[in-house]
């Protein structure tokens, strides 16, 4: 009977570790995972070990069968790939925590921020969510010179959030022109559930 590795509910890279151990003592294994990232990682593992890999999506998980071939195909192209990646193709969150880009000169920083948002709005890829914090909230209120770009990103379906505490601190809550007011609970969840968070 084929050896089964139930990796559902396990955080990356545990499914790969369990499958690797199972392959040490079995010629073929059936790995069950519950997400696409784990599926991709197990596929890579199979290729790197010279296995044939087949998978089937079922209602209770993704079933992947790894079967060792008669002879190991060493130094295949897949050997050069990273064995696994824990980042999924999930959301990218951009956190803007000041109204200028970088440290040094604020005039230059203002120019860089304008230039950056123009590029974000006009080219792909762009982040799924943008969170404005601290003095960064000044960029989403009336009078901001990058408001047009932020609104264009919003039209493209990107989620824009401004920290409510920060808007309140600067007394500009009534001037919000793009996105919606958010709180720290939501901001924390957005940052931690993202596959990648970029902080500017």
């Amino acid at each position: 009977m084929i050896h089964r590795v139930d990796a559902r509910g396990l955080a990356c890279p545990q499914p790969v570790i369990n499958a690797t151990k199972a392959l040490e003592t079995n010629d073929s294994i059936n790995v069950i995972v519950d997400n696409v990232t784990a599926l991709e990682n197990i596929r890579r593992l199979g290729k790197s070990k010279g296995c044939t890999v087949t998978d089937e999506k079922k209602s209770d998980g993704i079933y992947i069968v790894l079967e060792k071939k008669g002879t190991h195909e060493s130094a295949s192209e897949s050997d050069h790939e990273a064995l696994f990646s824990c980042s999924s193709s999930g959301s990218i969150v951009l956190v803007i925590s000041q109204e200028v880009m970088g440290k040094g000169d604020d005039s230059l920083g203002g120019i860089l921020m304008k230039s950056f948002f123009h590029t974000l709005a006009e080219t792909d890829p762009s982040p799924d969510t943008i969170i404005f914090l601290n003095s960064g909230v000044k960029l989403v209120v009336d009078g901001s010179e990058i408001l047009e770009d932020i609104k264009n990103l919003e039209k493209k379906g990107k989620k824009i959030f401004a920290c409510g505490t920060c808007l309140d601190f600067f007394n500009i809550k009534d001037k919000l022109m793009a996105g919606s007011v958010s709180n720290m609970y939501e901001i924390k969840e957005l940052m931690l559930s993202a596959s990648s968070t970029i902080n500017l």
Partner: protein
Amino acid sequence: MIVQKTYHVVLFQSVNQTMWADKILREIKFQHKLVPVPRHISSDCGVCLRISSDQVKEVREALTGVEGFIEIVPL
């Protein structure tokens, strides 16, 4: 029929000169936008001013004599 708006970019020798020209155009309430220099024009990490193509003549007049002004080219 939707008419696609066309743009030109105003190029300067340095970022400081671009910032200065940005200020001049702002003072005369000119509609323009500061953008990165398009990659097909320069691979430098520079900035320039994007203007509507129908404003080229007006901008050229406003910036005549401004230090560092290079050229206005189609985007």
